[in-house]
């Protein structure tokens, strides 16, 4: 294609569509290039996935579509696929000589728009432009939906949720997507910050730097369909706020109000696909905002049946509204226990009205085996903002009660771990170690439950809790570390 042709072609989509072709096999690459030229696309080729990523990162608006081989020496094609999806939100088509359905499935799961078998025929390439159109159409829908909502949580990351929660692709997602796509929906779909989503968020924030992260950029990096800048902005806000809380001294009464609203929000959170909390145990599934005197009971009310925040499988942050246990109960629990140094994952977060937050640890499964500490923390932080969404007014009452009574030391054991099969191992032993915790903030983070039932995110909660613990450890380092409170793991048991 000559340059002149290119210029002319730009407005005649799909003519001139800009394709990046990646294949380590020179023969195939050459053929592919020629085929694409024949379709009148503008083609850039590279035989290395790394180079491809660099090209894309350099200017993500330079390409409309990426076609990539699966077997490449320097990077697995699926990995590239994931990265492109995460960072650039471009449609990616996989190419392979493997016709095995499991490869195709893998491609789909990693987000490929299509999967072509080699040798590629020109007829197939002539239609690949549809993926570009489709994707941009979804983006438009997303912005319509979110613009029509005032609430931040408009966009629901259904897709993510689906994947994590059910591992069922396809129809369900689409159905939910359809629900959310309805721009006329009065109810604003809440964005469920699932673990995956939160991880992406964390990745993006990491990449940009916490201070410098801008919602817009984060959004771009995250590259999640139907997520809007507003969603990200609100999430970021919460995240930052959580961070601050963690790093600040725990004694901040001012947080209570925020916490209150969060709690309220949390209560209205829905478990993704049914968070199954195992028991009535006060398991704090979701992230709980750090609250100093937050009546843990509220959040991690033993009697709360649906309180478990998102199911691990859900991958969502779901903080079920938890009924607030009678304060008495809480009071009974004296949480003047020394907190064992617990890994963040296992912590029973106990909030004592007398500003003692006792976190008891139980073994928690590792919160997020796959997550980096930063992610963990971030996630947690992220979690609880979401978790906090539903705010129950009663909670504030409780909180204030808690604050004032100071008599009850209630230990809240969140047996995240116990109820849940897999508890993340919180490996933050130093985190919660409190004999008496003063001004412990109950940090509730929402987390996706690691394991099916238990909010594996408990770990994060633990982390949060831990971090909130009276400077047993430096907040920051805590923060830095694995924030993974074992939300799920933390066995917050109400010590009564």
């Amino acid at each position: 294609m000559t340059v002149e042709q290119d210029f002319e072609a730009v407005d005649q989509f799909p003519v001139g569509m800009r394709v990046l072709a990646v294949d380590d096999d020179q023969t195939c690459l050459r053929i592919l290039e020629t085929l694409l030229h024949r379709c009148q696309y503008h083609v850039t080729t590279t035989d290395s996935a790394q180079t491809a990523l660099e090209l894309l990162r350099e200017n993500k608006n330079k390409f409309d579509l990426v076609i990539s081989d699966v077997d490449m020496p320097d990077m697995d094609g699926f990995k590239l696929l994931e990265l492109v999806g995460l960072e650039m939100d471009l449609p990616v088509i996989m190419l392979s000589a493997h016709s095995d359905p499991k490869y195709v499935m893998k491609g789909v799961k990693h987000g490929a728009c299509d999967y072509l078998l080699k040798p590629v025929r020109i007829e197939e390439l002539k239609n690949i432009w549809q993926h570009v159109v489709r994707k941009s159409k979804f983006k438009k829908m997303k912005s319509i939906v979110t613009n029509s909502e005032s609430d931040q949580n408009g966009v629901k990351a259904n897709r993510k949720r689906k994947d994590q929660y059910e591992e069922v692709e396809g129809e369900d997602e689409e159905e939910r997507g359809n629900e959310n796509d309805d721009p006329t929906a009065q109810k604003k779909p809440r964005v469920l910050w699932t673990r995956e989503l939160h991880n992406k968020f964390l990745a993006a924030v990491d990449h940009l730097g916490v201070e410098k992260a801008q919602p817009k950029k984060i959004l771009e990096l995250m590259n999640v369909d139907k997520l809007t800048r507003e969603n990200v902005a609100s999430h970021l806000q919460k995240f930052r706020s959580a961070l601050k809380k963690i790093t600040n001294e725990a004694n901040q009464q001012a947080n209570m109000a925020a916490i209150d609203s969060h709690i309220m929000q949390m209560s209205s959170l829905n478990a993704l696909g049914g968070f199954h909390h195992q028991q009535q145990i006060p398991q704090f599934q979701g992230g709980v905002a750090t609250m100093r005197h937050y009546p843990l009971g509220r959040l991690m009310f033993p009697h709360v049946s649906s309180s478990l925040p998102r199911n691990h499988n859900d991958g969502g942050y779901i903080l079920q509204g938890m009924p607030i246990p009678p304060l008495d109960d809480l009071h009974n629990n004296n949480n003047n226990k020394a907190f064992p140094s617990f890994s963040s994952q296992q912590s029973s977060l106990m909030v004592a009205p007398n500003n003692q937050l006792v976190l008891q640890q139980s073994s928690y499964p590792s919160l997020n085996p796959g997550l980096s500490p930063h992610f963990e923390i971030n996630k947690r932080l992220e979690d609880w903002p979401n978790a906090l969404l539903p705010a129950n007014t009663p909670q504030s009452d409780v909180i204030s009660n808690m604050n004032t009574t100071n008599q009850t030391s209630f230990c809240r054991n969140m047996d995240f771990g116990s109820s849940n099969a897999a508890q993340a191992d919180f490996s933050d032993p130093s985190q919660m170690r409190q004999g008496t915790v003063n001004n412990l903030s109950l940090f509730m983070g929402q987390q996706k439950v690691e394991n099916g039932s238990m909010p594996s995110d408990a770990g994060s909660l633990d982390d949060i809790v831990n971090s909130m613990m009276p400077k047993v450890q430096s907040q920051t380092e805590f923060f830095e570390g694995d924030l993974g409170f074992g939300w799920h793991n933390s066995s917050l048991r109400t010590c009564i």
Partner: protein
Amino acid sequence: MQRQVALIKQSLFDQGYLDEQFMELEELQDDANPNFVEEVATLYFKDSARLINNIDQALERGSFDFNRLDSYMHQFKGSSTSIGASKVKTECTMFREYCRAGNAEGCLRTFKQLKKEHATLRKKLEQYFQASKR
């Protein structure tokens, strides 16, 4: 000359050295890409020579890492398919079967055959391109 070219090509197809994919490639050849097919063929033989070498070495070592051999062969098969090298492709498939069965001797045998087919194809294509140019 034209006739000779046509004859060579025909025989390549008749004898199963090449399949429709080769024809697809020819269709891609045009004024913008006047030597497309030859270029692709050159690339292919260069690439495949390297692969053959790798496989040879692996086989000579006698260690028979079937996974790796299978992986090489997968690559080989991919490019052979793309160029329409039919017989070579068949040998590749057979080789991979032997790999999966863990049949070292079968692999060796097949590979020998594969090399032969590969060499023959190369020669014939060279002839073909030579004739086309005249």
